[in-house]
């Protein structure tokens, strides 16, 4: 239940407490001019018994942890235990030092003080152990919650990434189906590209970071497939400024943004569509902007994000805890989606 470290710590503090209390009691008895046998015998016996009582308390609280702090319960258990301790230690001492009448008188007179002392120690031990085990429980609970959160975050990221896929997949398969009759060579090439693309989506972890160069390579696979589907209606231009290539970004982030731009661009115009992708560094951030044409008369990009981008925004939030990384702007007939990726220094 408890980790080895915490168990060790408990034992260490008990031993220290035992040594301190044995010394204290021995000093008092020595001060009262009792012979050395009584000094050692009394202090060792009483405090060791007290140590045993403390271990009992620890074991009880370990397996039975009060859900709320019941003061009455703590006081009651401590007083019963103290009484028990007093009874046993008193009896033992009486038997041990039968002939020492002066000492027996002292023992009798100090019963109340001994009881009060034991009660105090046991109450402190009880409270400390309750606090200790409660803290452990809480730590465990906290870790469990964090695990659950991480798990659901991962699942959500996975779902967000999967959202844009099926339509693309089925249309690509349809194109391949057509190509098998028209141009088997190209059909084979497209099967290869589609497989590479899908393999990429399968093996990657949601929170994994890849270099811009890798991500662009992956994006090109996707664009090649789309170009087969849409023929010369789809044109793309990718600009990467010097030094950006090793910058890191979450894997598979660009493809859905570009997919969105293509959908938006191709379905909003009947002619050719040019999609441009610009990558540059600014300060500590990698900035990627994707532009597509649109018709301001017929489609009103909603405020904030265009359609389909909210899931990307959510993903960026889950990864970076920031809401300002994705922005969109419409200039005249060009719609621009900009994504900023903070770089670790």
């Amino acid at each position, binding site marked *: 239940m408890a980790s080895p470290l915490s168990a060790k710590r408990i034992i260490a503090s008990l031993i220290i407490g035992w040594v301190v209390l044995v010394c204290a009691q021995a000093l008092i008895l020595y001060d009262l001019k009792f012979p050395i046998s009584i000094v050692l015998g009394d202090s060792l016996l009483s405090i060791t018994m007290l140590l045993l009582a403390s271990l009992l308390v620890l074991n009880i609280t370990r397996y039975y942890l009060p859900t709320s702090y019941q003061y009455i319960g703590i006081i009651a258990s401590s007083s019963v235990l103290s009484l028990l301790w007093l009874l046993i230690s008193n009896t033992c001492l009486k038997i041990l030092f039968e002939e020492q009448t002066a000492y027996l008188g002292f023992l009798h007179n100090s019963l109340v003080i001994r009881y009060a002392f034991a009660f105090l120690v046991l109450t402190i031990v009880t409270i400390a152990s309750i606090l200790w085990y409660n803290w452990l429980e809480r730590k465990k609970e906290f870790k469990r919650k964090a695990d659950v959160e991480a798990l659901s975050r991962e699942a959500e990221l996975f779902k967000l990434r999967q959202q844009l896929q099926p339509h693309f997949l*089925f249309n690509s398969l349809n*194109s391949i189906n057509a190509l098998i009759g028209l141009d088997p060579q190209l059909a084979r090439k497209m099967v290869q590209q589609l497989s590479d693309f899908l393999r990429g989506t399968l093996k990657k972890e949601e929170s994994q970071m890849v270099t811009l160069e890798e991500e662009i390579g992956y994006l090109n696979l996707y664009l090649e497939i789309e170009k087969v589907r849409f023929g010369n209606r789809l044109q793309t231009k990718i600009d990467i400024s010097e030094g950006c290539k090793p910058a890191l970004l979450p894997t598979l982030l660009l493809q859905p943004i570009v997919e969105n731009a293509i959908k938006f661009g191709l379905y909003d*115009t009947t002619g050719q569509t040019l999609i441009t992708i610009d990558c540059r560094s600014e300060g500590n951030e990698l900035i990627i902007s994707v532009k597509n044409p649109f018709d301001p008369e017929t489609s009103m990009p909603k405020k904030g994000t265009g359609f389909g981008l909210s899931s990307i925004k959510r993903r960026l939030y889950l990864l970076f805890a920031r809401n300002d990384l994705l922005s969109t702007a419409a200039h005249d007939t060009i719609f621009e989606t900009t994504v900023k990726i903070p770089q670790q220094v």
Partner: protein
Amino acid sequence: MSKVIIIDDEFLARSMVKEYLKKHPQLEVVAECGDGFEGLKAIQEHQPDLIFLDIQMPKISGFEMLELVENPPAVIFATAFDEYAIKAFEAHAIDYLLKPFDQERFDKAVSKFLASNLPVAAEHTKELLNDAQLPGSNNRIVVKNGSKIKIIPVQEVLYLEAADDFVKIFTKEGYYLKNKTMSFFESFLPADMFVRSHRSFIVNIQEITRIDPYEKDGHVAILKNGAKINVSRNGYGKLKGVLGL
């Protein structure tokens, strides 16, 4: 001999259908179109018996195009839309083909068409457009203005008024007619923007400047452009709810 038009924005998807059609010499492809505008023109020109129609296409969707055809022919949808979305109109289309599909599946759809009674099939298409909750965008309305096609974003619609078999869609520039029912628009338009204030009126709540009492237990909504919209008792309740009065 039946006339067929293929409407799909992807060249390869069209050639696929053409290739499969080689087995059916009784069907003649009279036109191939890459978007809804071309499709509409071709349908008017050729009056086909059957169209193969994709749904997601540039500018206007397959549905929006169909809505603008006066006497729609029989339709076989060929789309990559998922099955769930397409189930909605299963009853009304001749058939639907989920991309990718093979010759066998295609032949089945064609024989369904050949077995069906043409006028009935065309009637089905009309029902499809009227009843089914079609997948697609509810943020715009596509209308025909003479020979031109106009796409009206819903936020530019001021109000709608029933006019016999048509609905008048009022915008700043004037009104457009569309052959639809009020209840279609009531369920089609976003409920947080449009309220059916009266049997014959649906109003864009952002256009309302005030609501005055009118005759006994009726009201009238005054719009920013001065238009007066009838508000029934029931409609007044709905308006109060949406406007948070």
